[in-house]
């Protein structure tokens, strides 16, 4: 854009990286001061690898880099940071036992001859947090207490330093909702104005339109396109990335909802989830929107028994005649085992710590939730297992060398697909999806949606938490909105708009009256008739 004559801040020439096979090849690219370069491409295309090379985390096999015209060969992340090249990584790397402040300033804790100056530490940290609109968080809070979305914000805040020349953001918004995203974008604008060059990796194409000056597309480790963002249509980008057309879901009709399969009455846990009523119907997708920390994850964990509720009850119906529950569990499930036996599944938002056996292969991870299907009298049937794993890999287009590849070495989006694959392998009646498309590319997302459609057609009930409103609006038949632990509104398809959803999400406990006074078109405010196992909001 405005980079005309000046020396580019960063230029890459013929970069390449090989693991067992080449994953990056012949990438040449320049990055100018004060611009945002969007980097996009399918899962496993090499975006993270390229970003890591720039930031000294991975050593390239071939090629050179110049930073401000000088040869740039960072041997470590620290090296790169010393020269002002920073990165927000796709996978979280916080130290959960340390406080937010300590994490923010981990490598430069303010100290006097080794003794930490707490006052200064907390002041600096608070300033850092304020930059991204997190002033409500006490810098002394241990990171373990934060939800994963908030952790992502801390990770971003850590890298908003004054001396930055190049900032790489690898899918920073995969876990963020619109409020946090707009804080981040404000910061990006400020950095741009200061002449920082920014690389922005994301699968959310609408964001790219908003923030990027140029866009670069990677495919199979090669740069296939670099162009100005202005005027590029999304469909074009997708075509370049995936190499095929991906059909839109946006304008679909409401699915025909069947009887209730699962409902919760007054379910709650401490302050995180406050007495929620919710019904999940066969054959439909219910969405859950809300801000980071609004309690969506906590709610699905209760519905799955991952945490124990301390009040309320869960009712399970046979899905034929929804009058009498076949199972009624007070205070929720005792354990996930009980819930799974009852036909419930959960795709967790935190694949790394709650979803995957990182050191194990795709095969082991994909078949984990139903070993019964691949064993006989306790002995694993290896051929059958391999067959199933291969089928799942093909079905979800998991990019890998073989089914024996350890999932730790897969790209983020492909790891997410492995978690999802597990619940395709195991049949369940009700599937809870917490940020199921976190870090998944457009093409793969379409595959995933197609799978979800197949599930609803088969009469399953789906509950989908997502921070991506577009995704919810495209996929769901109803969208519930959570705020401060309460389900503040439920909208029917056709009765929502981005504004109305956001407005509900921003109404916290205090503004709840306002939300319930104007339930836009939302039919049932969740706590209007507590304790009644009836299907209050059947269409």
């Amino acid at each position: 854009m405005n980079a005309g004559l000046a020396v580019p801040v960063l230029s890459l020439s013929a970069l390449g990286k090989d693991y067992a096979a080449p994953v990056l090849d012949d990438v040449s690219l320049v990055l100018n001061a004060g611009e945002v370069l969007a980097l996009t491409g399918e899962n496993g295309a090499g975006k993270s690898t390229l970003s890591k090379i720039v930031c000294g985390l991975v050593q390239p096999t071939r090629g050179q880099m110049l930073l401000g015209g000088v040869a740039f060969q960072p041997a470590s992340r620290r090296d790169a940071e010393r020269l002002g090249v920073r990165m927000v990584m796709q996978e979280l790397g916080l130290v959960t036992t340390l406080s937010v402040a300590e994490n923010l300033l981990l490598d430069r804790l303010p100290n006097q001859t080794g003794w930490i100056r707490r006052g200064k530490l907390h002041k600096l940290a608070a300033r850092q947090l304020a930059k991204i609109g997190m002033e409500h968080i006490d810098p002394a809070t241990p990171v373990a207490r934060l939800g994963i979305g908030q952790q992502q914000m801390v990770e971003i805040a850590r890298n908003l330093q004054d001396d930055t020349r190049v900032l790489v953001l690898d899918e920073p918004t995969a876990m963020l909702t619109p409020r946090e995203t707009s804080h981040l974008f404000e910061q990006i604008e400020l950095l741009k104005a200061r002449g920082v060059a920014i690389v922005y990796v994301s699968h959310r194409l609408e964001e790219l339109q908003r923030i990027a000056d140029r866009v670069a597309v990677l495919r199979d480790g090669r740069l296939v396109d670099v162009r100005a963002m202005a005027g590029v249509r999304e469909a074009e980008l997708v075509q370049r990335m995936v190499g095929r057309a991906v059909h839109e879901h946006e304008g679909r009709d409401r699915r025909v909802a069947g009887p209730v399969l699962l409902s919760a009455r007054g379910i709650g846990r401490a302050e995180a989830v406050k007495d929620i009523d919710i019904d999940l119907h066969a054959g439909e997708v219910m969405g859950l929107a809300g801000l980071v920390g609004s309690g969506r994850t906590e709610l699905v964990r209760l519905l799955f028994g991952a945490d124990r509720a301390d009040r309320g009850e869960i009712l399970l119906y046979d899905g034929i005649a929804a009058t009498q529950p076949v199972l009624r569990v007070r205070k929720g499930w005792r354990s996930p085992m009980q819930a799974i036996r009852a036909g419930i599944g959960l795709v967790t938002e935190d694949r790394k710590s709650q979803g995957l056996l990182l050191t194990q292969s795709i095969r082991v991870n994909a078949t984990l939730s139903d070993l019964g299907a691949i064993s006989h009298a306790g002995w694993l049937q290896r051929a059958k297992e391999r067959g199933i794993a291969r089928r799942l890999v093909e079905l979800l287009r998991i990019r890998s060398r073989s089914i024996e590849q350890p999932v730790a070495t897969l790209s983020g989006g492909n790891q997410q697909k492995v978690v999802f694959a597990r619940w395709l392998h195991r049949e369940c009646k009700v599937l809870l999806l917490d940020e199921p498309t976190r870090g998944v590319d457009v093409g793969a997302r379409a595959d995933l949606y197609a799978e979800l459609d197949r599930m609803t057609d088969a009469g399953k009930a789906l509950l989908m938490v997502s921070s991506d409103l577009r995704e919810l609006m495209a996929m769901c038949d109803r969208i519930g909105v959570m705020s401060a632990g309460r389900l503040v509104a439920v909208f029917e398809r056709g009765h929502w708009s981005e504004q109305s959803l956001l407005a509900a999400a921003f109404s916290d406990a205090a503004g709840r009256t306002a939300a319930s006074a104007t339930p836009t078109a939302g039919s049932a405010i969740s706590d209007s008739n507590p304790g009644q196992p009836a299907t209050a909001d059947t269409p």
Partner: protein
Amino acid sequence: MTAAAATSAPPSALKGQLGTYVGLTVVLVGMVALFGTLSEYFLTRETFISIANEIPALAVMAVGMTFVLIIAGIDLSVGSVLALSAAVTAAAILQWKLSVPVAAALGLATGLVCGSVTGAVSVAWRLPSFIVSLGMLEAVRGGAYLVTDSRTQYVGDAISGLAAPWVGGISAAFVLAVVLVAAGQLVLTRTVFGRHVVGIGTNEEAMRLAGIDPRPIRILVFAATGLLAGLAGLMQSARLEAADPNAGVGIELQVIAAVVIGGTSLMGGRGSVVNTFFGVLIIAVLEAGLAQVGASEPSKRIITGAVIVVAVIIDTLRQRRADRRLA
């Protein structure tokens, strides 16, 4: 990521799997060669038979401990359990006048109960198994003193059958130990249970959310280890024809050393029973060799320490090289 290679490679990867034994084999062969030059009688049939007959107790405990370490646990009580099981067997024969098979069954049951208690307590209160088994180490040893009245009980050859030389001088105990090693390896790599064990050691929360209750599996692993320690107790008292209340003091560190030399991680999630057996062999050959050449006590200690570390270094370096080739 040798974890995957060692614990769950498909049969097609047999060659790769053999590769994982190379490092330890080198150490073992090196040691045998060294002792062979130091002592003219080391490279004899007698030496190998006597080593073979000395290792069963260590080997069967190491099989159990491999599983325990893979689930990121530890069991310090195996030595005490060994002693108590042997003591109960002896008491059953000598004082309660029970038949030998019944007495042996009682000894095994003792081991099983001890292991189950360790497992159940650590699962029930979610305590680290280190501390629970440390408590058991003390308490069970106390039990062994009680049962034997702190006196070595001479049982005689009523129970020596297990240790008696069989075909070619090899004892039934050795054969049993080898069978258990093979069975352990198969259970670890080929069964649902083994898959669960590895999974729990890798990421317990992920297993729980995949619908697998880690608690019974944990308890089972400790119970099995207790049972195997009980079996080791039988093997030892069969060999020595006596039950010593101080048997197996400090043996837990030896068992763990064997398992770790075999490449099993203390952090859980990876390990191999066959490699553990190599670790057992290394320790047994070292002990036998040093006794045979008549090394002085200080030099025995220093050499043992050095060999443990060097064996692990050699194995680690080899693994890393293999990993790099793979990557």
